[in-house]
């Protein structure tokens, strides 16, 4: 589903490499953590996965397509299959909760009737039913995060990327959110979650891509997870 071949990446022409020699393959329906210290390049690697940036060198294959060969319109179509929950949410502050969540559906030109039904349902489900017409700046951090997650999953993406989704939350809500991801994964969504929260990684025991010095290394937690799985 996703294949990174010898990927290197830097933000500017003469900047330093943020990522180098990154190689990995994610199977359809898989669930991975992406770990690494702050500044290790998790967010950058995510941005390559949602095609927000193009690698400086190497080959990315997504959904069976080599992304550097694609036209702009084909890239847009591809991105519609990816749901992203950004570290800083990136909600549109002038739009209501409803319109924020509806955005991915409108972008893929779904009929407005369908948009209304699905969005109302999902907003109720994440517990923001009373805040449909509120603007994000009037809501709490936790409520904004729920808008962000609703927006990421509303269009039933094949790939869900979440960048530090538990970063701003106390453990209780964080674990509930993780439960949602588990559920989506069981329904077939491929999931990658960037986190530096070792506790979560250990608790859920999914394979882990570990970023150290701008490249992936086989992580101990990964091995532990494998061992745990082997035991059961």
């Amino acid at each position, binding site marked *: 589903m996703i294949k990174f071949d010898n990927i290197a990446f830097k933000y500017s022409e003469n900047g330093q490499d943020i990522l180098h020699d990154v190689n990995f393959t994610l199977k359809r329906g898989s669930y991975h953590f992406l770990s690494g210290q702050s500044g290790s390049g998790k967010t950058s690697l995510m941005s390559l996965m949602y095609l927000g940036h193009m690698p400086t060198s190497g080959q990315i294959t997504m959904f069976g397509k080599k992304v550097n060969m694609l036209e702009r319109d084909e890239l847009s179509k591809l991105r519609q299959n990816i749901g992203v929950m950004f570290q800083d949410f990136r909600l549109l502050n*002038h739009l209501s909760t409803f319109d924020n969540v509806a955005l991915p559906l409108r972008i893929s030109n779904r009929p407005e009737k369908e948009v209304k039904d699905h969005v109302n349902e999902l907003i109720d489900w994440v517990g923001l039913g009373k805040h449909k017409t509120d603007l994000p700046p009037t809501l709490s951090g936790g409520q904004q995060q729920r808008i962000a997650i609703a927006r990421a999953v509303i269009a039933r993406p094949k790939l869900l990327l979440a960048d530090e989704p538990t970063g701003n939350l106390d453990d209780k809500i964080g674990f509930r959110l993780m439960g949602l991801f588990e559920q989506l994964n069981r329904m077939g969504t491929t999931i990658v979650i960037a986190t530096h929260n070792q506790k979560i990684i250990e608790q859920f025991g999914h394979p882990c891509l570990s970023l150290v010095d701008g490249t992936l290394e086989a992580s101990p937690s990964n091995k532990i997870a494998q061992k745990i799985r082997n035991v059961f």
Partner: protein
Amino acid sequence: MFSKIKKLYSQALKYLGFRDYDLPLNQSEDSRFLILLVGLMSFLAVLAFSGTFALNDMTSRWSSGLENKVTIEVPVETKEGHLLSNRTVNKETKKLASKLENNPIIKSVKILSHEEIQELISPWIGKDLTLNDIPLPGLIAVELRRSDSKSLDMLKANVKAISKYAQLETHHEWLGSLISFANTLKTLALFIALIIGGATVTAIIAGVRTRLAIHCKEVELLHHMGASDDYISRQFQRHSMILAFKGSVFGTLSGLFIMGIIVMLSNGSGGSLIPAIEISYMAVLFILAIPAIAALIAMVASRFTVLHSLQEMP
């Protein structure tokens, strides 16, 4: 109060199925400036267009009314500088009129009375002078069956044969220069309209570029969520289109209002200073289409600008 109306208005729009822009375009300060500019441009366009229509109308009235009309003059002074007596002038005039009457190329012949002649020349010498004070020329208004130069040449020859004093005054020469002057004005108006269009397009492009720069973060976000260039462009198009339409309606109506006043003044003043201006319903309809045209121009200009600028974004 005002904000209440505004809120009601936006709720009504939402009810009708319009929704907010995905980009906070309505928060830009330059919107009002663009409305004002397009309004001003539309106002000028109305003046330029109605000027053109009025000129068109006038020139066609002039030429259709005058082209087959010729004046024969028996002047009070011969080419050699001798004065002719009133009696001679009258005799020559009558002779010409009676002989020309049966000419097949001529439709009608009419000797102008002294009162009519005085009416014609009164703007130059004033009405207070009595007829007897100055010698008056004899004038015959002739209407030709055809307005081609062959009939005109034949008439010239005939007149010369009948009277050695008579002179032919065709309206062709001064009418021709008047029409070419009018055409110059029309070209000028068209030129002004083009400049107006160009300036409006430039302003719209600059506005769109500014808004793209201000909202580049949001545009980038939409891109990352899979929005195509077309989708993003539509947001800007709709916004520019509505601004241009608002401004243009305002400007066009003001322009029509001013033109209405000018037309009324021109018709009320007895036609001495300003010639009577008439603007046909067709012209008014055309002018009323200006807002639609402005909106269309704004839409196309925005689309090209956005698509072009987006190409340069990742």
